[in-house]
């Protein structure tokens, strides 16, 4: 194992480790963390350079990966360390074309300041040619200027090996997307949703609340074949020739998109023997769009609405989020392949949130629960794994708790009306 540095983005910190662990599983690259402080630089142990590149190449949060040569609390001390280091690992690259770069966190360095730092490294004896456009080797100084950082290390000298996939965030930016709706999901966290689902080539991923298709694009981007459905066909169909299909064409994902269809999660038309590799969704929970299901005829009669039903679109009824989430985990437990993932967004009121809000199922194991916080509410990305069927005993399917999971009457609480 060798020492590497990972440079993370400063966004959504709660999601960084779950993503990295998921990538480790997807790419089959083990890693261990040596130092992870609040700063954006993590020191990790990885087998070799190739594995390190592989680990981060599809990462949304990791900006880059570097082979670590030395680190210290100040730049001056770093120079001392490097001058006295034996052997000098960078000498392997002392004849190759190279460039020198500085990545400074928490402070902007002018060109002049950067040159000033670079010039202090003359003692490295790099004899290769400098190439700004296509160097074989990028020596990098990482500087952490964040005052709050609890890490003692402030300066790192390393060699850049590879980058993540943060450029995909721009690619899926909603402002550039041809067809969007009020429930379209922002780019960065849509990509992370696909990541947590381990979307990839040869897999089938299903979004049962597809809306305008946000997760289909990011799951297909990672190579998965995607299916979506929604109870409201209008959103999928779009208007004036802008639709989910139009976006699929915009992103050139036709070869990894299967279909969308109109359906109700409580009456899913996918045959039970067709297992899915992952289920991803942002269920409608009543803030921008409410959840609906087809009303059963008994309920309609109770509503004194006994007029004969002739219109083609069935009557829908309100679908409480705790019922929806329960149906969803039951559905996922039945329909996922062994070790397949259910990845769903769940809104919670910050003050009232407790672990009981997380749905449970004996066949599903909660792997991650990462929160994005807003003022008085949060949304949580829950990642479940389907336990191998051979290991799960068929019993106590229902949760025996008084507490209704998934924030009963979230909508009322969100809008500030306390429930009756």
């Amino acid at each position, binding site marked *: 194992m060798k020492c590497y540095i990972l440079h993370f983005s400063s966004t959504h910190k709660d999601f960084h480790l779950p993503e990295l662990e998921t990538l480790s599983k997807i790419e089959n690259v083990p890693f261990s963390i040596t130092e992870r402080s609040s700063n954006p630089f993590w020191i990790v142990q990885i087998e070799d350079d190739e594995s390190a590149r592989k680990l981060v190449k599809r990462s949304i949060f990791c900006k880059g990966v570097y082979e670590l040569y030395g680190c210290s609390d100040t730049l001056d001390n770093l120079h001392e360390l490097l001058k006295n280091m034996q052997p000098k690992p960078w000498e392997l690259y002392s004849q190759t074309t190279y460039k020198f770069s500085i990545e400074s966190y928490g402070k902007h360095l002018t060109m002049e300041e950067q040159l000033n730092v670079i010039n202090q490294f003359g003692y490295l004896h790099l004899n290769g040619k400098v190439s700004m456009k296509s160097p074989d080797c990028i020596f990098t100084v990482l500087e952490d200027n964040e005052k709050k950082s609890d890490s003692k290390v402030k300066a790192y000298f390393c060699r850049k090996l590879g980058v993540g996939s943060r450029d995909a965030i721009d690619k899926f930016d909603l402002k550039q997307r041809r067809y969007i709706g009020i429930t379209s999901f922002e780019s960065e966290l849509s990509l992370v949703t696909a990541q947590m689902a381990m979307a990839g080539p040869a897999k089938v991923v299903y979004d049962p609340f597809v809306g305008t298709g946000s997760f289909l694009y990011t799951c297909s981007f990672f190579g998965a074949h995607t299916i979506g459905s929604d109870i409201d066909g209008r959103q999928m169909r779009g208007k004036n020739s802008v639709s989910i299909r139009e976006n699929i064409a915009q992103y050139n994902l036709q070869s990894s998109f299967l279909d969308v269809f109109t359906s109700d999660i409580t*009456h899913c038309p996918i045959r039970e023997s067709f297992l899915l590799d992952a289920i991803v969704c942002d269920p409608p929970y009543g803030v921008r769009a409410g959840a609906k299901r*087809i009303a059963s*005829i008994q309920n309609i009669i109770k509503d004194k609405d006994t007029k004969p039903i002739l219109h083609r679109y069935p009557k829908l009824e309100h679908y409480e989020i705790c019922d929806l989430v329960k149906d969803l985990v039951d559905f996922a437990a039945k329909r996922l392949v062994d070790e397949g993932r259910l990845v769903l967004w769940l809104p919670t009121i910050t003050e009232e949130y407790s672990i009981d809000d997380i749905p449970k199922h004996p066949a599903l194991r909660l792997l991650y629960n990462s929160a994005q916080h807003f003022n008085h509410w949060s949304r949580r990305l829950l990642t479940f794994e389907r336990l191998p069927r051979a290991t799960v005993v068929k019993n106590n399917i229902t949760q025996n708790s008084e507490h209704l999971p998934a924030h009963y009457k979230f909508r009322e609480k969100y809008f500030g009306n306390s429930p009756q």
Partner: protein
Amino acid sequence: MKLLTANFLTCASKKCSSSPDAFPLNISDAKIAIQECEMNPEFIKNVMLRVEWPALVKTTQQLGNNTLPMEKPELTDESDELLFKSLHNVLLETEITEGKMTCGSCGHVYPIVEGIPNMLLSETEV
């Protein structure tokens, strides 16, 4: 709607879930389009494990294509490219743009409009 999708959609009614007549849904009045897309042999191999072959044969026959063998072809890494290509063409490039799918058990008709199947039941069937 791709023929692969037709191979995993069944009647949404719970009453029909155990009926052998509910799958595959019977396709009629279909308009077909060929949408070419890039082939991914790994995906074909993987998804073929989940394809109900007799149902696929029946569906293609209802669309007037009698060329599929009755036996599900075994796919290995060495299988010839022609076989992969023909499966790719049937499962992923053949699309039903308009048509009807009828459940052989309860008789519910699921319309396909602009390539999107409407799999909703009515209130009386829920």
